[in-house]
């Protein structure tokens, strides 16, 4: 079976993950941070699928389904929170929202 080599898939995952991470660290808007998290999750999911096809194991795809479910749950809660925050504070800027000091 000829497919995409594992190295290429892993490099793609690395790039996606780094992009997500950078977005998480640099973006100030909550909704974009949430999207960056999604990108990071999906990059790992791709890594699982690629590794699964490299060793011809179904585990990678099973993990992908799991991650998908997880991401769906996370987004549900996250978006609900974002909506609430937006209603209450009329902004989604995390720098403005930094009120929970220890």
């Amino acid at each position, binding site marked *: 079976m000829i497919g995409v080599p594992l190295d290429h898939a892993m490099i793609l995952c690395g790039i996606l993950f780094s992009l997500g991470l950078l977005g*998480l*660290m640099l*973006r100030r808007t909550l909704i974009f941070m949430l999207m960056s998290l999604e990108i990071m999750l999906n990059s790992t999911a791709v890594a699982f699928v690629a590794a699964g096809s490299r060793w011809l194991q179904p585990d990678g795809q099973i993990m992908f389904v799991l991650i998908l479910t997880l991401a769906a749950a996370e987004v549900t809660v996250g978006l609900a929170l974002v909506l609430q925050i937006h209603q209450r504070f009329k902004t989604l800027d*995390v720098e403005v929202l*930094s009120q929970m000091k220890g």
Partner: protein
Amino acid sequence: MLDLLFLVFMFPLAGFVILAFARGRLQETPAAIVGVGSIGLSALLTLLIGYEFLSTPLEDHAYTQLLWTWMSVDGFAPQFALRLDGLSLVMLGVINGVGFFIHLFASWYMRGDDSYDRFFSYMNLFVASMLFLVLGDNLLFLYFGWEGVGLSSYLLIGFWYKDPANGAAARKAFIVTRVGDTFMAVGLFILYHELGTLNIQDLMMLAPQQWAVGSDIATIAALLLLGGAVGKSAQLPLQTWLPDAMAGPTPVSALIHAATMVTAGVYLIARTHVLFELSPFALNCVGWVGAITLLMAGFTALTQTDIKRVLAYSTMSQIGYMFLALGAGAWGAAVFHLMTHAFFKALLFLSAGSVILALHHEQDIFKMGGLRKQIPFTFWVFLIGSLALIATPGTSGFASKDEILWLAWAGGHHDLFYAGLAGAFMTALYTFRLIFIAFFGQSHGHEVHVPHGLDHSLPLAVLAVFAVLGGLIPLPLESVLPHPHIASEDGKHALEAISVLVSAAGVAVAWFFFHKNRALAEKLARGNLISDALCRLWSSAWGFDWLYDRIFVRPYLWFIRVNGHDFVESFVAAVPVAFQRLHAAAAQSQNGRTRWYAVSMVAGAILMIAMVLL
């Protein structure tokens, strides 16, 4: 029957628990029923067990009841076991028998006290601990009981805690005996380290196999145990707590500071006699500690004015006799004297208590006088106790004291014998000084309240009978303690005659100076510088309190003053300061900025991955 042995100390323990939890809620009569009844049951059980034990001899003359294994750590598995043999049976009899009558008397003596049930809860705790001490199969449990009696002694000396002086006396007793206990604990550590067990029977079997006679390690172990015994039994040099312990109620003095607890040291040495036989030096020390204490306490008793302090010094002196006997290798005689002393000294203390209550808490003998006519019953029982104390022929004191003197002489310990003989003279002198001053002579016009009631008179009468006839009780000690080999009985009667003459001389001198011609005694005491100094030295108990104050208390207080801002504490105080700084730094990082959290999380993850990979 024998398997009920554990109940012997469970009864007093249950009494303690009931009274301690019912604190303040029980009336006097139910409290007395619980407090005295528990000891009564225990005494009854002791009688039954003793009868069974003596009538059907066991194989090795001992009965061991294993209750459970306390813990099991790497070969160290102390068994919670009780052991009944001749020696512990004698001690059981003394503690429960004499203890019961003292409790009965106490139920009369303490009537009207605010914390009647608290008193009996402490007394029951004491009896339980003391029974634990003598029944323990293991030095560890013996030590447990040893500390338990120390605690109850502290609680009872400071029973009337509203007077700060009583609290100070209680603390003094606790701390001074603690010095001895520390020696004993170190001794136990050494024994366990060297022989690998604390079971008394195993120890006594292993020690002669592993240690040569006179070896250093045996001497050190024996001397450390002697240190514990000296502290508990108020012998030189840890004797200073006993006179102050008289601050407690009089039945306490009778039970703890005359009959039982203070003789625990004698029990300990008799129990571990094999160790002392391995070390002639330590055994000699025992004898000399006894002899010196016996004489010094005798002189001090001669100058005291408080009736209970006279008896306290007399107790110290009599325990000196027991130590002397131990030192001479007369183990059985020492235990015999322990028993007879418990009878007559408990009698003396209780009748002193009767006198004190009759005179509305007057303890100064020079304010008594002429009491013979006013409280005849108390006078007669006090006289019987005193006659036993000075070893009048026919009383129990004669049987035991002359046994000690004879064995000391026959065993070749002539110097100990002479010390004992001099002590006999002193005993007669101070005892009859007390009697002539307090019971004879002129009355001081006190309003005397004649004590009556069965709970007052019965204990005194029974103890008086025991003080006279107690010497006839045969002790089952042959299987436990070796009897010294005496070549011949020649001279025993001559010796008895000499000691009786010496005692009689003491009584005669007391009669001359303190009854017939008291002015002369006053003149002699205050006459010139030397006698004045001697009197002051004796009445301050040879200045030991002063000496210890200078050597230990003052330097310690000085050190505390100098080291007011504790040097060690500055290190300890640095720990919370460091944690406060760390806390402040960590709190800084929790700033509520989500992106900062994300960055630090990533940094942490990178750091950890780097640590794993590199």
